[in-house]
């Protein structure tokens, strides 16, 4: 038996599998959280380094993504939240944004949505990211953000409405119902 391939610890194997399967999703979450590719890369790396130290606490691998996102959010708050300028003001966004222009679907609605997302206040953007990218339920988002489920539902509702309003150029300003 070749000692090189003989065995890596099960913890190492589990860690490798998590990195290979979830680093892309975490990067996307980090990118939309901080708005910067390089910082998102650092955030994901630091998240996994911290996750390694606490990997024994992960009992349910199905919950790994939510667990890692929780770590990433805390890292973001700890490291970057204060010093990061948030996304560029909508009036300053160059229409020929290089990143969007490189994407095949850049001519479509997704390009406009990305720009609208950058404009969305973080208090709306983050619960939406947690739901759409993280797969969190309203209750889980509420727990994570230390809000009531009703408040989370209101923020999710408003987030979508604001996005659609921005996409429609303000034509869809409507009543936002408080959700109970």
């Amino acid at each position, binding site marked *: 038996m070749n*000692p090189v391939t003989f065995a890596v610890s099960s913890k190492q194997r589990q860690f490798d599998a998590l*990195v290979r399967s979830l680093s*892309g999703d975490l990067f996307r979450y980090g990118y939309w959280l901080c708005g910067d590719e390089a910082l998102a890369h650092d955030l994901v790396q630091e998240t996994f380094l911290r996750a390694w130290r606490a990997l024994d606490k992960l009992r349910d691998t199905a919950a790994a993504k939510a667990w890692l996102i929780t770590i990433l959010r805390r890292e973001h708050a700890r490291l970057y939240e204060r010093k990061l300028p948030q996304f560029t003001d909508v009036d300053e966004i160059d229409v020929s944004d290089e990143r969007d222009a490189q994407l095949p*679907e850049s001519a479509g*609605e997704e390009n406009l949505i990305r720009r609208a*997302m950058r404009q969305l206040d973080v208090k709306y953007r983050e619960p939406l990211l947690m739901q759409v990218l993280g797969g969190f339920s309203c209750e889980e988002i509420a727990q994570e953000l230390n809000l009531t489920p009703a408040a989370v539902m209101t923020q*999710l509702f408003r987030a979508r409405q604001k996005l659609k309003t921005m996409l429609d150029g303000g034509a869809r300003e409507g009543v936002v119902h408080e959700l109970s």
Partner: protein
Amino acid sequence: MNCLEFRRQLGVDPQSASPEFGEHRQQCARCAEAHAGALAFESSLRRALAVPAPAQLADSILLAHETVRQRDRRQYGRRAVLALAASLVLASGIGIYGHAQPLPVEAVGHLRDEAVVLTWTKLEPDSDVRVAFGMRGIALHDIPPGPYTFIGCCPMNKHLTVHLVVQGGSGPVSVIYVVDQRADAREDFHLAGWQGRSIPMGHGTLMLFAQDASRFDGLEQAWRAAIESPADNKLARS
């Protein structure tokens, strides 16, 4: 659920799986139409958020992780000198020096955990072998010839060790010197796919692991000369 409640839920979670949500959609054509529109928007939203991750992101994370682990091991090695002193005090004071598993079994477990070091090819200076043993409180009389590609002061469960990988034509040999436990007798063994040899040496135990045991005799002789005093060597030969 009425139309207002449905539209609220639609804004909160268009993919809601609640029975009431589904039932209302079946009963109300206008809400069903709104639902279809909302799902189309969700689909666009997901695509918009799916920015591409950097190439080799996973590889770079795994490399960073391995680098940090190596650094931590080295720091642990330095701290372990103090830990050794503390453990010796404990052992002499309250007599708790028993271990659950035979040393070769513990060593194989350690080799599994540290399997990555067998893939390393960068040569370490031979002089670091003397440094590593010095950190374990052992002054080598000589440095057995390398080349070495890994030199570490590793904890192995409750034991303190020096762990080396020495390269050669027949493949790498892992050398583990357990500082704090001397085996009762010299023995060769075959364990978990490894050829192994355990040798009481000095105040501890030298263990050799490889796929091919042909170099064990030469390494044993070199290490005995390095670790034991000339008087001990005479004793071992007699």
